């Protein structure tokens, strides 16, 4: 079945800083319908927003971001849904993935673009050459990585090496806890994964040309 996957990591809102990622999958050959499939969304919001509002925000954001051209700026002025004019959507587009952060005016716009870059590079390191399916099937791991970078809506760590070190240490801890019982589970999961349709490893971060010219790395 020929598929074209449009994976969009996208969105969120919080009066402080928000992230959420979503994906849309279009299977053109089977039936011409579009369905949105979320990879990861995360809301750091003070006032609780209901699941319905969250979904609405995600849909709206997806709608806004996905219709934008290639060569336009990466900022979108906030609509009412994401908390008014103080908030902005800042996104980056990698192959089929959109990473969208929603931030307020206390964050530097270019700084957030860099943060997204750090996030993607970290994903690349942690998943060893990341592809969209890694993100789809391992949302929990993506969450864990994000948690080391952003905490309660505020930037926690921007140094990639530091993040990777902490994630590795946590993985080790996890493995040691699984111990004897973990081995057969891993084996089964490996078998299950063999059934996966050919995994297209189509987003190679190394190949992606980044549009922002020589941004300094925040190290």
């Amino acid at each position, binding site marked *: 079945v020929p598929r074209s996957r449009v994976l969009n990591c996208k969105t969120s809102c919080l009066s402080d800083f928000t992230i959420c990622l979503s994906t849309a999958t279009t299977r053109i050959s089977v039936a011409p319908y579009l369905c949105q499939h979320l990879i990861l969304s995360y*809301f750091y919001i003070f006032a609780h927003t209901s699941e319905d509002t969250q979904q609405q925000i995600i849909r709206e954001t997806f709608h806004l971001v996905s219709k934008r051209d290639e060569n336009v700026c990466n900022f979108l002025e906030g609509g009412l849904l994401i908390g008014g004019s103080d908030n902005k959507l800042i996104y980056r587009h990698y192959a089929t993935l959109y990473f969208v952060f929603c931030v307020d005016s206390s964050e530097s716009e270019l*700084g957030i673009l860099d943060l997204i870059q750090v996030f993607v590079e970290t994903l690349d390191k942690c998943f060893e050459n990341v592809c969209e399916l890694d993100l789809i099937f391992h949302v929990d791991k993506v969450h864990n990585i994000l948690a080391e970078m952003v905490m309660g809506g505020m930037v926690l760590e921007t140094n990639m090496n530091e993040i990777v070190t902490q994630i590795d240490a946590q993985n080790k801890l996890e493995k040691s806890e699984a111990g004897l019982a973990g081995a057969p589970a891993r084996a089964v999961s490996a078998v299950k*994964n063999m059934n996966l349709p050919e995994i297209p490893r189509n987003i190679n971060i190394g190949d992606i040309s980044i549009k922002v010219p020589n941004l300094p790395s925040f190290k």
Partner: protein
Amino acid sequence: MALKMVKGSIDRMFDKNLQDLVRGIRNHKEDEAKYISQCIDEIKQELKQDNIAVKANAVCKLTYLQMLGYDISWAAFNIIEVMSASKFTFKRIGYLAASQCFHEGTDVIMLTTNQIRKDLSSPSQYDTGVALTGLSCFVTPDLARDLANDIMTLMSHTKPYIRKKAVLIMYKVFLKYPESLRPAFPRLKEKLEDPDPGVQSAAVNVICELARRNPKNYLSLAPLFFKLMTSSTNNWVLIKIIKLFGALTPLEPRLGKKLIEPLTNLIHSTSAMSLLYECVNTVIAVLISLSSGMPNHSASIQLCVQKLRILIEDSDQNLKYLGLLAMSKILRTHPKSVQAHKDLVLQCLDDKDESIRLRALDLLYGMVSKKNLMEIVKKLMTHVDKAEGTTYRDELLTKIIDICSQSNYQHITNFEWYISILVELTRLEGTRHGHLIAAQMLDVAIRVKAIRRFAVAQMSALLDSAHLVASSPQRSGICEVLYAAAWICGEFSEHLQEPQQTLEAMLRPKVTTLPGHIQAVYVQNVVKLYAAILQQKEQAADVSAAQEVTQLLVERLPQFVQSADLEVQERASCILQLVKHVQKLQAKDVPVAEEVSALFAGELNPVAPKAQKKVPVPEGLDLDAWINEPLSDSESEDEKPKAMFQDEEQRHAKPRAPEADEQELARRREARRQEQANNPFYIKSSPSPQKRYQDAPGVEHIPVVQIDLSVPLKVPAGMPLSDQYVKLEEERRHRQRLEKDKRKKKKRERERRGTRRHSSLHTESDEDIAPAQRVDIVTEEMPENALPSDEDDKDPNDPYRALDIDLDKPLADSEKLPVQKHRNAETSKSPEKEDVPLMEKKSKKPKKKEKKHKEKEREKKKKVEKGEDLDFWLSTTPPAATPAPEELEVNTTVTVLKTGQEEPRGEEQDADEDREQDLEKKPSKHKKKKHKKDKEERPKDKRKSKKKVPPTDEEAAEPVENGTLDEEPLPPMSSYTLLAENSYIKMTYDVQGSLQKDSQVTVSVVLENQSDSFLKSMELNVLDSLNARLARPEGSSVHDGVPVPFQLPPGISNEAQFVFTIQSIVMAQKLKGTLSFIAKNDEGSTHEKLDFKLHFTCTSYLVTTPCYSDAFAKLLESGDLSMSSIKVDGISMSFHNLLAKICFHHRFSVVERVDSCASMYSRSIQGHHVCLLVKKGEKSVSVDGKCSDPTLLSNLLEEMKETLATC
């Protein structure tokens, strides 16, 4: 055992895990909802199992489903179970789920407190880390209060990984529990200089976030941040600090001066665009703050504008966007420097990126002038035509209106052009901004008298054209324009060319499809038109025509009478009757025109929107005073509702001003007329024809309508009207210029012939363009003696307002984070500790005021010192940047100090003199050293002075209030009441509960030795009741007493505390008890006893708890509180004191106070909410209470009644 585990795990292998779930959902595209509901059923089964691994797996899947929009709050308890698993793997899953779905309304969240505390103190840093991360998302006020101290401890953890998370989460804690800010701030400040860059960056992050909301409290940190800025190499930290400075500079212009140089250096040196951009931004903020005082910063402005131009011209759209954004900030204060780049901005208007176009539009606002307004608007109009999507088109529309109407239509030279632009805009289908256009039309027509004739002509054409009415009103907001059109045609009907035609247009059947409020305006203005036509016809003595018009109205009005809209119906039926009456009169040949016109006599003048608010209250008028004394409050209870109703009526009655006699009135009127005649700014009404008949002779009228005939009223058709105006305008200007040149030439010739002193260069500046019409923009009327103050009320619901806390004030002892202790009683029993406050307490009555005063002074002093540190730092700028005025300022302070030398303020003076010298001679190293020494010495002094006046218990005992009550001095109050007394000893006591322990209260008993004997072996015993029991040392029986842990020498008093366990707190109760002791004097020793009755009032179970008004309102709305009320008469105390008394004695806090009404809140140790509404009448006070327990409430109110009775 091991086999069982393996077997269990093999079973589990075939449970669905997260990957299976994701795969399943992707494979069930067609029936996703069904598949997911199946999965949720499975998950529910899994959650019922005991195996924690199965549960964790289920919660992990739920987290994913939550992301897809499914509500998982039903699993909150299971999530907590997984959170408390011992394995990190599971714990992390639990905390992740909690962070996604817990919020303040989740009731089980209070079960997590102890679990989180345990995790925070876990030996594994990842357990702690994951708890902090989770908590940061779902922290509630309760959690914040209970865990603040634990988190603060973690800020000094040995591992930087924990430290940085703990520092960062403090911001969330401050937000939820503002009381923690002051105690935690010193440590937070320390972390700014943490060796680990991550921790440092987190601390900068938190402080910047705090300072952004309340910058003034963080001004004293400026030197520290300045140091960080010049030393740090971390761009994240730099950006944050630079942004923070941007927020601080408006408060302290000197800071800006100090910053300019390092920032300019950074701009020149950095290669990081993000840093460059933030620097430019902050320099702009500095320049804005300096704009009034400093003349010579044009170099900096130029630098900024240049750099921004580079950004805007960059091919990268992001930089272009940001460049425009920053440019719009400069525009506000330095429009000239931006206007030079008009070309660039106009170019950006054509950009294909909407975000950029919007930014460019913002800039346009400041770029227009009289000269280019028409040209720019023309360009925008073409964009309007091309624009796809209503959002951008609407944005354009509002911008066009903004640009044209800014500063009172300053840039419009030709209002006919503007009206035609507005009319062209009405062709936009589906815009949401019809009302904006309408408002503009009304505004221009009312305020620019010269334009009325033209406006009326255009509006009648609008009314006549079908397209506006035809478009469906639901879809299009543009029909709002008809509202304005109808009103203008009606009100200024004297200018109508063909009133009859317009009248018919307004009475068409289609009009009834318009929204109700527009129809209502139609109906009203039809009558205005009718009046005008009648007048016209009667003057022409055309009786039959007049009757025809009446007939037309009688025929057409019924269609409005049938309207579903009440307003339309009411107006129409009223007017229909009127017209029928007129018809009768006409049949008898009675002239009616004048009387009908009288309905609409007079002119409507524009009034400023704030005018009403600004009418000053005349001297001697007390709006709160009774006009009629209320009836005495002696009515019996059942008459009460009636009495309240009367109150209401009295309040509505109008104040009757004392009647001035006729002569006085006449005199005043004359005086006002004189004043108005002499005041060039007073706008006199010009008589309209409608009004003429009633004009009294002698009222001056100044005709304003004067139309410049260089612009024809009717323009040839063909191209859009506004374009023709542009052309005409160009011609007109050209002509004007020629004329002017001619005049100038003549002048010059004259000059040449004369002295020949100057020859002026001709440039066409804005001022040269004379407006086409004699524009008289009527300013809005304001009441005479309006108060000029323009108070912008702050939003009372701002969540950050609670964090507006002075951080420079020294910490009081009472300000501590709540710490969970196992037994309060032991620690607080130590006599040394209790000694000091006790002495204070005894002597506090007379001294209280004095002490408060002293304290205030001390605070002031501290502030001065602080300020001085900052001043010193700020004043050590390179001499070039220190302007003369400042030196002056310093000098004056010094002289003030010198003349007021009798005040012992030595150390301050030293510092001042130091500074003075520093300023006079340039700061030499030697001086600096000296100053440093000074500084080092000062803290010691501070400490000393602190010891001298130790913060007393009073502070703690005083009610915590949201609203400040310290407007007037409060009478001294003590919460201690007499327990028992004999010749040996006097006992007073107070009962305090604590929110941490829901069934315990602490009774503090002050024992005062009144005899010459030495009292020892004191023992207190109480006869326990079923409901209340004294907590005795372990192993003792119910009949044993509790020893008092001290002895009392003659004349000494001390305090002992006893803990009681209470079952039910809804009723007051008394416990009988005995104090036994041995009294020893020179003659020997005797065994003595003193019986007492310990009274536990319901009040003693309350704990003063602050409450915010929004939370308070929510509580009241929730509806699960029962209500009761009391009323007490004969109150003479002021309301302020009364509230203070309730706060103090009944442990309430004021939520909100409005005049003589206040809402108050308190909470019992068992968590009952108690809300009060206290209202003060003339001599009575009524208290309405709401509480989750009716018995508790009625008992509390009874107690309060007693207190109030003594007021």
